[in-house]
């Protein structure tokens, strides 16, 4: 174990861990909200995120961000953020309509919905991975080669952004990491307040507690479920945008690993619990970095998942417990 390195670099390891953990947390929200309302694990949520990363990438290519700078670059990035949120939200809504609504209306067992989710996940990922062939059906693969050309390998927007670092008391901090952490926590606070205070949020919590009573009280369950998926999609879109700022690179199956990690973060914090998702994401991100620093890169995932098991042994419902419904107004 390398304690000397660990303690010498603790601030940097923690900040980079928090930054990636914040991205986990934003994705984890989608899992946790849907679980809170429907007691269903939406395994296709990782693909919602993946489409968001491509929306960012395509906007950057289409608006030629590589040659832009200053105000123009910032404007392009804002457009990319909205495009990413819009596409992710759209995919999430389509997912709800196609893969879940009928099953939920018919009161199908949760296991069936789970299989439906896994199926939808394959379809969405492969549609992206085969986009060059799909464009080919319409004879567009040459016109769109910038967008569909590298269907099954990494797609990169590296070089678009300068990522300056600055020194704070001898610790080099990347500006992107700060942006990611601040943006993610800001979005979380907004969402938390929305669910606690707004009318729609009250409906979500009521449906989570008891769907039948909620509908007797005038809450439209279908609408509420739609809003839940919409919010999960929007957050995944923000996560996708921030991920692209930090990593620059995406691929049709990028959602798989991140989805597993984000789901882990949701369970770690207490699935169904919004604040739990944030805490779980940040803890997981930092644990991975610390684990790698202490034991070496091959132990990164081992440390993270041993931590998960230990925490669940002591607190079976996660750090903050499961409770979207019980959140107080």
């Amino acid at each position: 174990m390398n304690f000397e390195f660990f303690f010498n670099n603790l601030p940097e390891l923690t900040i980079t861990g928090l930054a990636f953990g914040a991205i986990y947390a934003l994705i984890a929200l989608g899992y946790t909200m849907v679980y809170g309302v429907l007691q269903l694990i939406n395994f296709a949520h990782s693909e919602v995120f993946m489409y968001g990363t491509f929306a960012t990438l395509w906007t950057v290519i289409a608006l030629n961000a590589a040659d832009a700078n200053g105000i123009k670059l910032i404007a392009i990035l804002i457009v990319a953020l909205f495009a990413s949120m819009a596409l992710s939200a759209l995919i999430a809504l389509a997912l709800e309509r196609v893969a879940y609504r009928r099953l939920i209306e018919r009161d199908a067992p949760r296991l069936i919905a789970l299989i439906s989710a896994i199926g939808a996940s394959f379809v969405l990922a492969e549609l992206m991975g085969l986009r060059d062939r799909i464009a080919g059906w319409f004879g567009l693969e040459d016109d769109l080669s910038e967008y569909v050309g590298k269907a099954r390998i990494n797609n990169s927007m590296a070089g678009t952004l300068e990522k300056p670092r600055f020194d704070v008391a001898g610790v080099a901090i990347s500006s992107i990491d700060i942006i990611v952490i601040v943006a993610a926590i800001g979005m979380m606070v907004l969402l938390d307040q929305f669910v606690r205070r707004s009318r729609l949020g009250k409906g979500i919590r009521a449906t989570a507690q008891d769907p039948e009573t909620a509908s007797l009280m005038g809450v439209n369950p279908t609408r509420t479920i739609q809003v839940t998926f919409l919010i999960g999609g929007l957050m995944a879109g923000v996560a996708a945008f921030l991920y692209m700022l930090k990593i620059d690179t995406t691929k049709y199956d990028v959602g798989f690993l991140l989805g597993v990690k984000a789901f882990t973060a949701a369970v770690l914090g207490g699935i169904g619990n919004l604040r739990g998702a944030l805490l779980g994401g940040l803890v997981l991100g930092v644990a991975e970095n610390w684990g790698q620093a202490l034991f070496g890169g091959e132990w990164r995932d081992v440390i993270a998942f041993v931590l998960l098991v230990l925490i669940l042994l002591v607190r079976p419902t996660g750090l903050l417990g499961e409770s979207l419904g019980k959140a107080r107004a």
Partner: protein
Amino acid sequence: MRRNKVVGLGAVVLTLGLSLTACGTTEDGDGGSDAACDLKLAFFGPETGAAAGLGKPIIQGMQLAVDQYNDDADCDVEMVKYDSQGSPDEAPSLATEVAGDESIVGVVGPAFSGEGAAAGPIFAEAGVPTITPSGTNPGLSTNGWDTFHRALGNDATQGPAAAKYIKDTLKAASVFVIDDASEYGAGLAGIVEKDLAGAVTGTDTIQTGQTDFSTTVTKVNDKKPDAVFFGGYYAEATILIGQLRDGGYEGKFVVADGVKDPAFLDAKDAAEGTIITCPCIPDTDPAVATFAADYEKEFSEAPGTYAAEAYDAANVFLDGIESGIDNREDLLAFVNDYDEKGITKQLKFDKTGEPADVHVYAYTVKGGAIVPEGEIK
């Protein structure tokens, strides 16, 4: 889970494709040549998947050799492709399929070391002669498979060459070694680490598919090495070098043949100055000039990494078929005794299947292109 589904689909498509091609008849040779008819050579490696970029030049190099042979032959040799996606998980079932088709007399591949290790025993058992144009893990030739041959230097020669370059040309006093825990990457990094011994100030391992390397970057910055060596493939290398440069690392970045792919240039400015070692002959080398011209005419692009090696490998088999061999056993004996000049090197294999004649070259990324720098001697 995800993978298997794709494989399943791939298998169906493949079987369909095979049954279709089986219907195509080959006209019978009416004397003239002794060459047997209805023989096939197989490509084994990634045609799709994350590493498809490395598979393409190999497929095209082999295709060129087969096409040129067929132009003059009475009996066409058919080239069949077995798409492993470069994955060791999928290799055994594909290898069994190859072994089951008696008309396949030779295999160019497996392209990668990991899949080579997984498929090797099956080929050895069935007696299918294989020549890999790109699998460089030294362990592959130590299993006693008499079917195994390699048309290029292995990592036991590439590793020391990379170490030599770091020591003599870069004159780096401190080196940080990173590997991707793959058969290929970890093996290569281990050799470099051993060869540089005292100069290695730190090591780290990443995982394939990982995208956030911040801890590795912190580790590198903690040591401030003159050079970083990475043993792995381009998918991770592209992201890793970007994050290293963003993280303020200013030393040299040295990688091996697994990164020699145009996709690595996606890292843009961060990729500049990267040194790539490769036992593959540059397409500007006079020895491969005719081949390079033919290749460019056929596929309208310059020959990629290992295209020339694949061309050589296929030609060893084709020479055997031309001499009238029509079964695996005789072809295997033919390959074992082969000693002719290929375009990349003198093609002769020792008892374990390693080439007798080996060269390693250095390349640098300059102005957004991978430029040959010369042989590492």
